[in-house]
Every structure is written in C-alpha cells, then in structure tokens.
C-alpha cells in the first residue's frame, strides 16, 4: 500500500507541508515492502490549478492513501475519483506523520477542507 505525505523535502525526516497543492514534494512510502520514494509536486510552480496538478501526479503514481493538511474542492474531486483515501492533520516530520496515521490518529477527510485558491502564495 502506497502512502503519500505532502512535505517540504524528499526524505522521511523532512518536515511535512500541510498545503497539499503547494507543497514542494510528495514522499511516497510503501510500508509493506519498505520503499521510500519522492516526487516533486508539479503544482508547486503552477500559477493556478495547483491542486489539480498535484492530485493528478499522485493519482498517476498509484498512491492509495494521502496524508496532508488542507485539500481544496478541485483536488478533492480528483482524489476521490482516483479512489485515494485522504487524511488530514499531519504535523512534524514525514516519519512522524506516518506513525500517527498508523496509530489511527489522523482523520479521514470526507469533504474538501479548504477553498480554491487558499494555497496561492502572496507575493
């Protein structure tokens, strides 16, 4: 089972980034086979529709579960269409977020918890 965590860096000890669409990296961990990979979030540089590119990328990577903070309506519709379970409330490092998830401490998102554009960086 592939678990994806939105993060600032590429490694299990990177800080998580709760902004799904705008985070720099997705760290993808498969605890069953003990693999850790990462992909750059194509949404981090998009001017608009960042969440869409982000969700598209992790759907393409065959992720089963996403651990993050805030997810807007557009991303959410892609994630649910792709059958990806999304949990929110991550904090600390990637490894810590994974442990919290495995301990059942992260809530499954039933609906988007952010508005469109909420992740746009103010210049």
């Amino acid at each position, binding site marked *: 089972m592939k678990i994806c965590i939105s993060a600032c860096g590429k490694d299990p000890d990177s800080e998580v980034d709760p902004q799904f669409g705008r985070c720099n990296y997705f760290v993808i961990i498969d605890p069953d086979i003990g693999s850790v990979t990462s992909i750059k979030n194509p949404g981090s540089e998009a001017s608009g*529709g*960042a969440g869409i*590119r982000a*969700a598209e990328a992790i759907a*393409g990577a065959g992720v089963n579960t996403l651990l993050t903070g805030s997810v807007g309506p557009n991303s959410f*519709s*892609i994630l649910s*269409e792709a059958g990806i379970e999304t949990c929110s409330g991550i904090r600390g490092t990637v490894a810590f977020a994974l442990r919290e998830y495995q301990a059942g401490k992260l809530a499954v998102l039933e609906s988007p918890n952010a508005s469109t*554009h909420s992740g746009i960086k103010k210049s």
Partner: protein
Amino acid sequence: MPVPKTPVQNTITITDDCFLSLCTGGKAQLMKIAIASGKGGTGKTTVAVNLALAIEEVQLFDCDVEEPNCNLFLEFELEPVEEVICLVPEINPDMCTLCRNCSSFCKYNALAALPNKILSFPALCHGCGGCSFVCLAGALKEKPRPIGMIEKASPESSLTFICGTLNIGEAMATPVIRSLQRHIDENRPVIFDSPPGTACPVLSVMGYADYCVLVTESTPFGFHDFLLALEAARALKVPVGVVLNRDGLGDSRVEEFCRAEGIPILLRIPNDKMIARLYSEGTPFVKEMPEWKKKFEDMFETIKALACKNTGV
C-alpha cells in the same frame, strides 16, 4: 513635452502626427479614463459616477465586474445586452484514447489526466480552445458555459451606462471586461470604473485607458495601496493623476509623494458631512451640490490637457 526625447528612427513623423491629432482634434475628446484604486472602499465608484454625471456625452462602464455598484448610485433601469460565455471542453469518454495531449497542453490546469479518465474543471478553463485542437482522437467538443452578463441602462436614462457582472462563484473577470469593452462607442469619451487591486482584471482596464485616475486616502494603508496601483499604471505606461478622497483626514504623505514625483493632484474631496450623508443615501453628490459639477468638469479638462502633454513621453 511635445516631441519624444529620443525619437524612434523612421517613425518620427508618425509620432508627431499622432501627437497633433491628439491635441488639436477629435482624439482628445475620445479619451478613455480609468478610475482605479489599490483597494476597494476608497471612493473609486463615487468619483467615476460623479465625473460621468458632470460631463455630458460620456459613457460610463462599470468594469468592477465582481462587485459592480455604480448602479447603486445611478439607479437606472438595466436591460440585458449579452451573456458572456466561455467555451469549455466536453470529453466524450468513448472516443478518448487517454493520450493526455489535452491535459499536458492546458496551462491553466483545467484538465486532469487520471489513469483511467480525463477530468475537466470548467471553472478554471479560459476558453483558449487549445485542448480541442490537440485532441487528435476528436474526443473533445467545446460547449458554451455562461460566466457573466453585460447590461446597459435603458435609452431614456440620462447617461450611457454599461455594466458587466461576473456570475457568482466564477473566477474569470477578464473575459467579462473584454466583452464590456466591445460595447464602447469610439466617438465619445469613456469612463471606466476599474476593479480594485492590481491583478489581471485591473490591468485589462488600465491598459485600455489613455489616462488613469487613482483615488486614494492619505492614510498609511491608503498610501501603500496607492503605490501598488501606481506601479501597475506605470508598468502599463498610462499617465496617472490622483484624487484625494476624505482629504483632511490622515496625513500628507500621498501629497508629498506626488509633489516629489510630479504626479498631479486632480481633485480633493474633503471629509465633508454633506458629501458623506449623500454617499450613505446612495445619491451622487454632483446632483445635490452643483458647485461640484464644475469641479468635475474642470478635472476632466485638466485630464485632457495632461493626457496630451504625456503622449510625447
């Protein structure tokens, strides 16, 4: 400055002609003036409405399509002119080969490729038509989606007034503004009530104007927003003048800045009880205070003269 400092080679005569026609004849009469401000609530709409009412034969365009409120003051009867539509893609899943041409083409990220289907997000689509062009399988069709409305004041109104409204929940103000601009009568001066801020929609209004009036208050926040709007106008090379609203409140920082930068202060609207009362009642103050009609007329004449002077720069 009548002649450009560094005349462009070969085009100097044309530049001169343009300048002359602007100053001597018709063209100066056909000015397009954008009334803008770095943020909402500075009195931008008040200035636009009062200026339009003071000058005869002018056309007023409410381009603040996300929150058009000129007509709160004008109270004209509005008639629909056209519905603004955006052509968005519709995907036929039976014909789609999942080649992803469309989603990788769309720079607005309005299409997402999932492993087994393409999802479209019409609210992000700018209607560029590119995706149907790159879909070799012919699985994409364009269908119209209404995003806004253009309305105009009924013919018996005292002023030509045209207003654009973006539908609730829509994000793209610029296409509505573009549609509005197609209704300009090029034989008469135009006043645009711009959207507030400095994003795309504002630029599409300022960029269309010959002169930009920035309405501001001389407070720290007002000054900050004023500088942002000024930067936008300068980037677009539109000459700028300032209207100081609620003059007397706040400090003199806008004024000092303008003096140092050579930006004309076109008008001062004092922090006056009568003006404030009329405003709160939704009455344009030129209607009740005839001395202000003259002040707005003078401001219009000043703008015409200044726009002339600026064409050589």
